[in-house]
């Protein structure tokens, strides 16, 4: 890791590092302090702006909105995993009839910005007299995009298994489906689980896009409450609270991914994949909003 880049410091270097550390602390304190001062100076820390936290209706509504966010997340996550499995099966198929359409679908839906996809569902479909609700539009967009990404993850996971696994199974006289379902998938799934969970973090963050089409989620409530004069327009406190909620939820999911990975590493039954292909897919898609 990073420690290989430098030696254990000697006396001179230690002094220099200590000096740099002081400079660093001063810089960080300076930046954070300046931001804090701006918050203070513009009155964002005034108790009146935080009073809304005490109202029961506000708390209940916050919880309801959080529930909406989580509902979109849960439904989209399940559907995306299913779609990903179907598309991956298509991409891994030996028949071009399945492989080509699946490849096209995966490539196209990974290339279209998620927001545009949500817009197509929400603003586009009504022209052909289908009127999806905001929830349906958000979930459909999230499912298509993350399903395509997960399809790549699944495919990379299956392909990264040692070739001997499939060869041995074929030598035993198993059929193609048996090889996939009984030999490859159980191993691949275990190895891929942490990667899938990290992709779900992206999905969770993307639910915030619902804000743009007024899906009644956390950010939407932040904007509503933030413009209420009776609480003194607490937009900044509201943003901080919502950010904290999102960061907490995402860190929780990341923690699940990391602990799954640790468990995998301890478990001797798991065949170490030959490369980190599945993780590469997610790394390169990680910034999908």
């Amino acid at each position: 890791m990073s420690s290989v880049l430098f030696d254990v410091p000697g006396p001179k270097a230690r002094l220099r590092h200590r000096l740099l550390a002081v400079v660093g602390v001063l810089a960080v304190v300076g930046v954070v302090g300046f931001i804090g001062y701006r918050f203070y100076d513009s009155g964002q820390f005034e108790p009146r702006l935080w009073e809304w936290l005490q109202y029961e209706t506000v708390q209940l509504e916050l919880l309801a909105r959080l529930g909406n966010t989580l509902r979109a997340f849960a439904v989209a996550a399940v559907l995306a995993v299913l779609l990903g499995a179907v598309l991956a099966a298509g991409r891994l198929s030996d028949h071009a009839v399945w492989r080509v359409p699946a490849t096209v679908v995966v490539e196209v839906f990974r290339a279209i910005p998620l927001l545009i996809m949500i817009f197509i569902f929400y603003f586009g479909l009504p022209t052909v007299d289908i009127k999806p609700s905001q929830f349906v539009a958000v979930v459909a967009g999230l499912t298509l995009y993350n399903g395509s990404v997960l399809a790549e993850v699944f495919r990379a996971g299956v392909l990264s298994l040692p070739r001997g696994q499939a060869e041995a199974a074929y030598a035993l006289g198993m059929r193609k489906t048996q090889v996939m379902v009984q030999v490859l998938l159980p191993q691949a799934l275990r190895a891929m689980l942490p990667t899938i969970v990290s992709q779900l973090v992206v999905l969770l963050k993307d639910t915030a896009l619902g804000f743009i089409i007024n899906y009644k989620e956390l950010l939407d409530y932040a904007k509503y409450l933030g413009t209420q004069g009776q609480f003194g327009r607490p937009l900044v406190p509201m943003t901080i609270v919502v950010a904290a909620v999102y960061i907490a939820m995402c860190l929780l999911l990341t923690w699940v991914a990391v602990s799954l990975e640790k468990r995998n590493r301890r478990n001797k039954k798991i065949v170490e994949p030959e490369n980190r292909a599945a993780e590469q897919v997610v790394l390169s898609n990680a910034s999908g909003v």
Partner: protein
Amino acid sequence: MSVLSTYSDLFLRAFGTTIQLFLFSAVGSLVLGTFLAMLRVSPVPVFRAAGAVYVTLVRNTPLTLVFFFFAFAYPLLKMLRLEPFQGAVVALTLYTSAFICEVVRSGINTVPVGQAEASRALGLTFGQMLFNVVLPQALRTVVPPLVSTLIALLKNTTIAAGFSVSDAGSISYVLSEEGANMLVGLSWVAFFFVLLVIPLTLVQRALEKRWSVAR
């Protein structure tokens, strides 16, 4: 077809804004991201911690929330005024740089230990070692994932449309005002994004194949 020909001006202008937004924030986030990566591998623990905290916080925040902050909350702080476009560039830069930082850092970690050890044995300082030996090699392995991050950035620019920047995402608002066929119009927007993104993906795959052999 009629939607595209009627609104060709709008499409050109909107995608022009998108590409501008992309270029500004790409340069910004590459610079900031590399700087953050340097912080994260530096020998001074405080720098490492600062980099780590920034990356963790930003990576776990939805981009929409970052935009939300700059569009609605930031003006209340009465600091430097930002136009919507500038605000979008700042939001995209701050967000994407965290991902670029992780990509560059993982690239630095792929450079064999011997390289850093050898440069230390030659008496290079940490900065010299980083700039002359490690980073040039790291960048090679890093370019393919970097291109994917930039593709994601290009797609992410559409979110600015929700915060009064007239980029490609905002085409839908204009179309709905004018009562045009939204399904066709938005399909064209999606098509142009596919047209922009797929060549980049192909470039990225080609680089990946070529440079993975070279190492």
